[in-house]
């Protein structure tokens, strides 16, 4: 045996080995694989046959596009051409119809190859039906949640709005009763009237705040550039009386400009500063506002030296009508922080509180300027 013959023998052996390797890889791959020439299956593996629901032998010689759902055929053809030209390397997804007439979602990648010295296409296919179904369900659920949220908002709005008229009647006439008949009936009547007047007044406040809460979502203004120093100054001006009466000092660092709903941001700062003053200890309240910016997210901190909040309530304080004190201790409807949360969420951010009883609270909220908000 000369050297040349020995070399070609080794090469023939290597070719045989790599053919065998290809055959095993191709046949046993958990990914559907095939080779197409002139649009017809020349070689298919077990997994492809399994996905399509046929025997391997039934597929050979059949036009591959025939298994694609009719509506998806044009897209599949275009994608395959683009991919074969090297224009895109990601897989594309489409629907196929199995022998049992079942529709399945698959993801395919293709590559140009030579097979038996002629141009051919090597394709790989994965069954993604389950993932698609989960995605579909997720989309459905998301839509469902969005719809039901919008409905709830509308519901709260209509309720709080439409209840105002009859409530005005109750409220006006109980007040008229009190005005005309106090001390003219008996002690019981006076007491009953007092409770009726008080109840109507409280319901007014509840409805007023519920209406404001529902308006955050339904009546928000489009976002614009907002200078937060101006916003905080406006909030402070609105709280002038409370600040003077309590001797509060409200200070702030240099504050950035953000993208948001000006009116709502004034309300947000006003509620937080207002709470800091309302829930004060015996000493004059000190409120400080600072801000930190990271990329598109600005995080504000409103820090006070008030009575603080037990950490076990740090989530629930943001719920609607949530009150941690009796009305005699601190008046209010328990809507202030719920409104804050809703405003912050509309601005793509989060709100939280860190506090220990007796050691003041710090409310943190973020505003996402990378399109977090919705109108």
């Amino acid at each position: 045996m000369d050297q040349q013959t020995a070399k070609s023998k080794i090469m023939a052996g290597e070719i045989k080995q790599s053919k065998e390797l290809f055959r095993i890889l191709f046949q046993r791959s958990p990914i559907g694989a095939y080779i197409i020439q002139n649009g017809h299956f020349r070689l298919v593996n077990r997994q492809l046959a399994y996905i399509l629901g046929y025997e391997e032998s039934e597929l050979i010689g059949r036009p591959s596009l025939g298994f694609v759902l009719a509506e998806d055929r044009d897209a599949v053809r275009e994608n395959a051409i683009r991919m074969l030209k090297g224009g895109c390397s990601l897989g594309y997804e489409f629907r196929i119809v199995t022998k049992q007439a079942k529709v399945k979602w698959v993801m395919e990648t293709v590559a140009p190859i030579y097979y038996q010295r002629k141009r051919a296409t090597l394709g790989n296919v994965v069954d993604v039906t389950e993932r698609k179904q989960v995605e579909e369900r997720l989309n459905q659920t998301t839509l469902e949640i969005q719809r039901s949220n919008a409905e709830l908002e509308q519901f709260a709005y209509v309720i709080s709005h439409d209840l105002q008229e009859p409530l005005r009647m109750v409220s006006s006439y109980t007040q008229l009763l009190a005005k005309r008949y106090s001390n003219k009936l008996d002690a019981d009547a006076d007491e009953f009237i007092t409770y009726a007047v008080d109840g109507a007044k409280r319901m007014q406040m509840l409805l007023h705040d519920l209406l404001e809460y529902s308006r955050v979502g339904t009546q928000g203004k489009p976002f614009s550039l907002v200078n937060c120093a101006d916003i905080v100054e406006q909030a402070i001006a609105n709280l002038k009386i409370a600040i003077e009466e309590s001797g509060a000092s409200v200070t702030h660092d240099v504050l950035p400009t953000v993208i948001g709903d000006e009116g709502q941001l004034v309300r947000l700062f006003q509620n937080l500063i207002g709470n800091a003053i309302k829930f004060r200890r015996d000493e004059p309240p000190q409120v400080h506002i600072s801000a930190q910016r990271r990329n598109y997210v600005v995080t504000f901190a409103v820090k006070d030296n008030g009575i603080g909040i037990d950490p076990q309530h740090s989530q629930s304080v943001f719920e609607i009508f949530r009150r941690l004190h009796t009305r005699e201790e601190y008046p209010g409807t328990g809507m202030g922080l719920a409104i804050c949360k809703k405003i912050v969420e509309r601005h793509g951010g989060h709100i939280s509180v860190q506090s220990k009883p007796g050691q003041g609270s710090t409310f943190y909220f973020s505003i996402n300027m990378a399109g977090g908000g919705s109108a």
Partner: protein
Amino acid sequence: MNNQTSGRPIEILLVDDNPGDVRLTTEALKDSNVQKRLHTAKDGIEAIAFLRRKGEYADAPRPDLILLDLNMPRMDGAQVLEEIKKDPALQHIPVVMLTGSQEIEDIIKTYDLHANCYVIKPMDLEQFIMMMKSITNFWLNTLKLPMEEK
């Protein structure tokens, strides 16, 4: 410069479908010191009939002031307002829109229709009475309005 000098009572037309509100307005106007007669219409159709002296309203006086509720069945306040403001015989009468609505769209709409004033009915009785006093004082005592012969 006071309409009271003419010696006749001020004619006020209140258009409101809610009897509770009609009574409340009556009570509130009792407190105001202007000499007046309050007429009521329970919806827009009746109000227009009153203003045009149709049918049973043949002898109705021309009101000096109209208090008009926005939310009413059959013909709402905005429609009545539109009707009044496009009628040369009625368009000079001051119209005060009275409503429970705080909707900015409602307010803008009524001003677009040339409402002379838009007032949200207060929840509080004292404020309601104060409001009625201010309205009657402002429109009937302070201003000299173009009055037609009756």
